[in-house]
């Protein structure tokens, strides 16, 4: 990477991205012309109700969409000066293995191989040579994601772990390539309230310590408010509003964004107090 030209440009820039999915006979415009950018080490949030195209957007950017359902996928995606639209398979794999991007998913049970020990699943994500043995590196990654006694956890199968532990294993897998950008798709939705806070805390720590850019996708505005400097509000495959998180949340310009924030805060008021400190 040539430092001078890249420093000024954003880490990721997306322009006019369109993803049309084929659902039976119909064509769904899941992502319909989206512009988005993420700076080096920045943390952004993407919020919207379910079905607004958040997950599809993330997968389209990281090229993780299944080909069979695609009717069209066009637009410009630029990562560190690399055009992802026309990237070759080996180059893409290289980005995923070394310091490129990684993703964690909402449902860690479904996204971990049920028949492989979690240590092996983390190990195969490690790109390139690392200090010491792969096993040491695996334990180091598990510990970094906040798992206690990583040596024992590495020998377990996914179904033997709790939901929070599984999400931490997912995080270890994502960290293995030392990514510059981490996409987290509803990282805490499948977890109960205390675990949510712990996992968010872990993500915040990693973002800070590793200088890793993050994109948090969530329908939970509280999560985004906690972690992200900037936010995009999505609906029906379009970005309705974007900007500084505090500004958008305090004085939304778009009526839909206002409604979403209003509903969310009302919901929070009725829900159990979430602010209490997490039990380790």
């Amino acid at each position, binding site marked *: 990477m040539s430092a001078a030209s890249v420093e000024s440009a954003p880490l990721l820039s997306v322009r006019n991205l369109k993803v049309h999915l084929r659902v039976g006979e119909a064509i769904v415009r899941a992502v319909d012309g989206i512009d988005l950018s993420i700076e080096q080490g920045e943390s952004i949030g993407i919020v919207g109700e379910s079905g607004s195209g958040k997950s599809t957007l993330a997968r389209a950017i990281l090229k993780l969409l299944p080909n069979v359902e695609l009717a069209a996928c066009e637009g410009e995606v630029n990562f560190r000066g690399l055009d992802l639209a026309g990237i070759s398979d080996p180059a893409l794999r290289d980005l995923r293995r070394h310091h490129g991007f990684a993703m964690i998913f909402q449902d860690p049970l479904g996204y971990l*191989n049920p028949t492989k020990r979690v240590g092996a699943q983390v190990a195969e994500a490690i790109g390139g040579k690392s200090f010491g043995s792969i096993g040491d590196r695996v334990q180091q990654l598990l510990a970094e994601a906040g798992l206690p006694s990583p040596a024992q956890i590495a020998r377990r199968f996914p179904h033997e772990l709790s939901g929070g532990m599984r999400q931490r294993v997912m995080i270890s897998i994502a960290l293995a390539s030392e990514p510059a950008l981490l996409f987290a798709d509803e990282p805490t939705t499948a977890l109960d309230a205390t675990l949510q806070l712990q996992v968010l805390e872990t993500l915040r720590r990693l973002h800070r310590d590793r200088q890793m850019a993050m994109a948090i996708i969530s329908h939970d505005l509280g999560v985004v408010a906690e972690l992200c400097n900037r936010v995009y509000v999505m609906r029906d495959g379009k970005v309705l509003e974007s900007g500084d998180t505090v500004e958008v949340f305090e004085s939304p310009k778009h009526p839909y964004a206002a409604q979403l924030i209003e509903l969310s805060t009302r919901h929070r008021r009725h829900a159990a107090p979430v602010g209490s400190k997490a039990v380790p």
Partner: protein
Amino acid sequence: MLRFILFRLLHAIPLLIAVIFVVLLMLQLIPGDPVQAMVGDFPVSPEFRAAITKQYHLDASFPVRVYSYFVNLLHGDFGYSYQFQRPVLDLIVETAPRTILLTSVGFLIAIPVGVLIGIISGTTRNKRVDHFWTSLALVAYGIPIFWLGQLLVLVLAVHLGWFPTQGMGPLVSHAHGFAWLRERAHYLALPALAFAVHEGTRFARIMRASVADTLGQGYIITARAKGLTRWAIIRKHVLRNSCLPLISVAGYVLGSALGGAVLLETVFTWPGLGLLLVQAVRMRDNMTVVGIAIFAALAVIVINLVVDLLYAAIDPRIRGSS
């Protein structure tokens, strides 16, 4: 694991008893004179009738006879086949290895071929490669095995003369060692091939469906996100997780074939359990029929145990719950 095996074997005992009971009950319900059925179309002398009646407790009630059959079984006595003039156990011990040889060789060809075709078409779904293999497998599976067998005999044995048309070996053989093996393989080739084509295409269809299913799982996306190559994903994540449906179907196929591949052995006059069963049924040799039924049940039970163990070996979630 050992406890699991012992537990399953203990479970097999009542199952086996039930199978024998049902077979005996069915024979009881068949109309006709059992003594006459035993000797065939010959006049029966009163002394012989009395002796047989006494030996098999034919004058006793059904439960008593079932009981005595079980007592005989426990002494290793499967009864005597008057048609073959030999103890039933001898007949089974002689023919069963032939059936086991035929089905296991056919099976060992069918599994890798089926798995390979299944993976190729499952990973290239709805492309031309997939259409080719899927249609081929469908056609091959649709051909009845007896017709496929006859076709193979006609083309490869009668017209081209590459293989013998039937049997298991020459009437007189002086071959030993490796030559003997080659001679056997020559006779084994066509029936094993017919079995392999039929079952291999069945396995391919099962494998294709489960590979396609596995490819839709979330952990495949995780594997892609890790930057693994396509081949590494198939090898490390798809293969193992796609095996479970195949294993249960393959277990069913092997279990039922071991109890006598009736059609296959009849077409190729392969002197195994299937052929023996056909002859025994035709000659109303009830003792032999019951004996084969017991062997078949035993084979199914053993294979099911193996299937369960394989399941547990492949999927840790099953291991945990058992």
